[in-house]
């Protein structure tokens, strides 16, 4: 399983890429492997705003449905429209073609509360 160094991670198994004023978010390799084959991704409308920790949408697999929790407070500026026809991108390429949303951040300091790739993997080994 891969956890790129340059990304930040949440305890709810989302990853965050810091891109200045905005961030790209997705779900981690661990999350997709637990959900197994993803069949549907429900993403919020562009322009909608979320507080950190709020549910922004759902990822649905054959087995279960999981909430996508917003790892930071912000406004949705773009969503990955390709997932509509290709939900499998989340399984095959969770950090690339399987990205979910781009958020314009409200409070940049929130990034400090997220985890490094080592800290995140530490949590995973505790969980299993």
């Amino acid at each position, binding site marked *: 399983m891969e956890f790129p160094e340059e990304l930040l991670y949440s305890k709810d198994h989302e990853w965050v890429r810091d891109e200045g004023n905005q961030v790209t978010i997705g779900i981690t390799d661990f999350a997709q492997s637990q959900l197994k*084959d993803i*069949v*549907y991704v429900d993403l919020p409308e562009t322009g909608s705003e979320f507080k950190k920790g709020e549910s922004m949408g759902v990822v*649905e697999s*054959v*087995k*279960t*449905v999981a909430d996508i929790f917003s790892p930071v407070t912000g406004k949705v500026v773009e969503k990955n429209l390709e997932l509509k026809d290709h*939900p*499998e991108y989340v399984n095959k390429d969770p950090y690339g073609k399987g990205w979910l949303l781009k958020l314009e951040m409200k409070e940049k300091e929130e990034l400090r509360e997220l985890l490094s790739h080592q800290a995140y993997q530490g949590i995973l080994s505790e969980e299993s």
Partner: protein
Amino acid sequence: MKDIKDTGLLQDEPLIFEQGGEGRKGYSLPRWDVEQVKEEERIPSHLLRKELEGFPQLSEVEVVRHYTRLSQWNFGVDSGFYPLGSCTMKYNPKMNEEVARMRGFAHLHPYQPESLVQGILKLMHGLEGYLAEITGMDRVTLQPAAGAHGELTGMMMIRAALQARGEKRKKVLVPDTAHGTNCSTSAVASYQMVEIKSNEKGVIPPGKVAELMNEEVSAIMVTHPNTLGLFEEHLAEIAEIVHRKGGFVYCDGANLNALMGIARLGNLGVDMVHLNLHKTFSTPHGGGGPGSGPLAVKEELIPFLPVPVIEKEGETFRFDYNRPKSIGRMKAFYGNFGVLLKAYAYILSMGAEGLKRASEMAVLNANYLMTGLKGSYYLPYDRPCMHECVFTDRYQEKDHVSTLDIAKRLIDYGFHPPTIYFPLVVKGALMMEPTETESKEGLDRFIETMIIIAKEAEENSDLLRQAPRKVKVRRLDEVLAARKPKLKWNRDQSQ
């Protein structure tokens, strides 16, 4: 020829649309003795249906064989053990079916005047009374067509009751051990859902409720017993916390099969509860209905019940529509009457003692199953259960066998699999509800089979991963079906 297949007596069967031939039919009429007229000449073209073109044309025996074959592929409570957790797949006595088919009931018309259906109104009023007695509530509406419809009726009544007090509240508390419909109902009723995490014992901690409960919360929706098959032991205390802040306690009574005659929800502080008559009170279900989800309420909520309400005046029964605070009608006519009738027949034939005994046996059977399987499967909440118990695939993970594989292997042994991957709070859940109607021999056979499957997982796990083998259709590609669903059949596809 393409239709020749060696499927033995498990006959293969194409769709009915792929069978028959032009002009074939199941009746013969005498020769015309009047001049024949084409319909296009007499009926304006915009009123003529075109989509019937291509409608199958078959002889009577072809139609009979088609549906008989399909029915033989089916598996129901009448064919074997069906421990589908959360669904209460108990045996439905045939006597209730017999009653529902009596001419006087089956030929009723919903527009018959009240004076000609006094017996029917008396029966509905009587059923209401029994359900109120069983749940410890004051009045009941029989209108809701199923459990979730009962929930919606309840949440709309709570909204109306709050409005009457001049209050508008936005939130509903729902524990993570509730039925999924509870969350959906809150959302459909435009409430914001706040989740309560259950504790390590699998029940709602009153402290958490106290923390989350405030004047913004209209109600808590509790499934009792919960989806882990556990008795919510702090329910009375939780109800008090919610009431103190002016909220209501909604109970999802779909699991009432564990409680009849033993615990009355009204006495535990519940303000309203829906029942799934098709589950607890004996109607064959699982095929999509019809169901019935009556809602029982405490006195404070009676003014908000849907119209009409059946009232008794002297020896006469009538529909009361004059109820200004009512939320209105929830269903055309008066509920799914056939299901109400079966429930009434079931309650009368079982009697108070019989219903209590049914719940006792349902709980005993579930605990017997739980104890028998504890050594072979991981039991996340190891304590006495109510009507169902939840295991997981944790012991089988090392052999790369999952809950799905275990479920599929059970089919090879002739059992309907239990509910899997639900409740969501348990990873890889296997949820089993044997119900009261299973004999000790039947339970022993199932336990023994499950133990054999656990051994197979260790010794020859491919048997599980390749299961089911002894079926007409093996594993379906669920991923493809979900990602690229074909929702409509068309003729070209079948060629």
